[in-house]
């Protein structure tokens, strides 16, 4: 009987902690197993990204299945970039029979940003319609209304960008968040937050929806990384004070972990959990969690 541990964690009222692991290009799963073992007792669930940044890698579904075997609660990330509605529904059924209970529906980056820029972008569905499809599969029907022999029981989530930079972008994020909730999103993960005040305003705006939100955090590794994200990544705005601090730090790793932990402490009272996107620092996630006192 499927029973999402992530769902139980939200229902228990505890401050939920999730992290993220990106499969590598190739079949070597040694590091993924190490990360899984290291984080098993530290996080409530681990997101597995789906061809992150449009770079071709080992698939999210297979890794989610491996995580189950290693005792880790997986969150199956599913983008609309590479699969049409037939493949998306089929992969969801496959995930279900492999025991995967959580998924996050995303649009997906454009292929042009990855390592196969000549690929055909699909986007047959979008994140909102994909969430409706998941709700349908949970109710025993495919998106054409055909009866399933054996239904799914996914705990489905979605993403939202609380740091959209213009009135139009911000309002559109909120409107789309409402649509995602109506379509069946039961929790949200956000784009990386660096400004607790702006995040607090966002949370006040969306608390009426009563859907748990995990604040996204990315530990800073260098000033260069912060500047790159400010310039190139939508919705991320690292304040100058943080850039200066990591820039001046002698032990940048130590300082990066400390800053991330301090941020989590500040965000803790505002939302229902935190989603740590370590981007290469997955093995340092336990240190961040310990330093944040979680």
């Amino acid at each position, binding site marked *: 009987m499927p029973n999402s541990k992530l769902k139980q964690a939200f229902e228990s009222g505890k401050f939920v902690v999730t992290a993220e692991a990106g499969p590598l290009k190739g079949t070597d799963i040694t590091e993924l197993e190490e990360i899984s073992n290291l984080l098993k007792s530290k996080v409530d669930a681990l997101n597995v990204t789906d061809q992150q940044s449009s770079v071709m890698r080992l698939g999210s579904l297979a890794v989610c299945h491996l995580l189950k075997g290693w005792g880790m609660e997986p969150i199956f990330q599913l983008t609309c970039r590479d699969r049409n509605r037939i493949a998306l529904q089929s992969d969801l059924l496959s995930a279900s029979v492999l025991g995967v209970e959580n998924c996050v529906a995303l649009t997906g980056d454009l292929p042009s940003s990855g390592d196969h820029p000549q690929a055909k972008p699909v986007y047959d569905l979008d994140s*909102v*319609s994909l969430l409706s499809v998941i709700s349908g599969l949970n109710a025993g029907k495919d998106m054409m209304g055909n009866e399933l022999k054996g239904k799914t029981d996914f705990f489905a989530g979605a993403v939202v960008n609380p740091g959209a930079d213009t009135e139009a972008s911000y309002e*559109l994020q909120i*409107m789309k968040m409402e649509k995602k909730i109506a379509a069946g999103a039961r929790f949200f993960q956000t784009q990386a937050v660096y400004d607790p005040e702006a995040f607090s305003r966002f949370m006040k705006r969306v608390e009426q929806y009563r859907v748990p939100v995990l604040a996204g955090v990315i530990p800073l590794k260098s000033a260069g990384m912060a500047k790159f994200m400010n310039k190139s990544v939508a919705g991320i705005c690292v304040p100058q004070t943080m850039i200066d601090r990591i820039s001046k730090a002698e032990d940048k790793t130590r300082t990066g972990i400390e800053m991330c932990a301090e941020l989590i402490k500040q965000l803790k009272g505002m939302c229902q959990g935190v989603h740590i996107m370590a981007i290469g620092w997955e093995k340092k996630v336990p240190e961040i969690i310990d330093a944040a006192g979680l």
Partner: protein
Amino acid sequence: MIVGERKTFEQIWDSVKGFKSLLVLGCGTCVAVCQSGGEKEVGLLASELRMKSRMDGLEIKIGEATIERQCDREFFDSIKDKAKEYDAILSMACGAGVQFTSEVLEPIRVYPALNTRFIGVTEAEGNWAERCRACGNCIVGDYGGICPMTICAKGLVNGPCGGSKNGKCEAGQEKDCAWVLIYNRLKRQNRLDNLRAPAATKDYSKQTHPGRYINEVYLKPKMEDKSAQ
């Protein structure tokens, strides 16, 4: 209009250099407006080809002609006889025109001189931009007259992805985020509520290829003609 972009001279030359005679055939409609395949461009390409053939010591007879439209049979009457004097035709029309020329003027070989890019508009002199994907199910009325299927790089119909930055698209800072455009126009028109309901799921069954459109009004008289005979 259908916007075309001329292939590089090297690509064109490689496809036609083996012929003894070549007719450069322009199209006087869309590609003339977007300055890639009209009468003027026929003249330029023919001159380039003559220079190149002379430089390479080849004797190629290069002729020029432009018809009103290469996608309409009636306009070929004026060049049918002339075309027979040539081994090959270099069509400067869109992909539809190239194929129709091949069909109407068979067995003469026809080669494309353009790459057909999109259905678009003239934004400024020498600057054309896509506006329509020909999806077969126009929804722009709900989006303030801005097509999310075309202007959004991902064709999203339920709102923007997370990649919109400063009103620009993840695909490049020179591209506007369609959703910011849609939001701003609907706000000016006081109808932002249009965006609140989930969009109908896209129906790609209307995009099966090759497409065909039959207008019964024009079919009927033919049938009546037959029955009268």
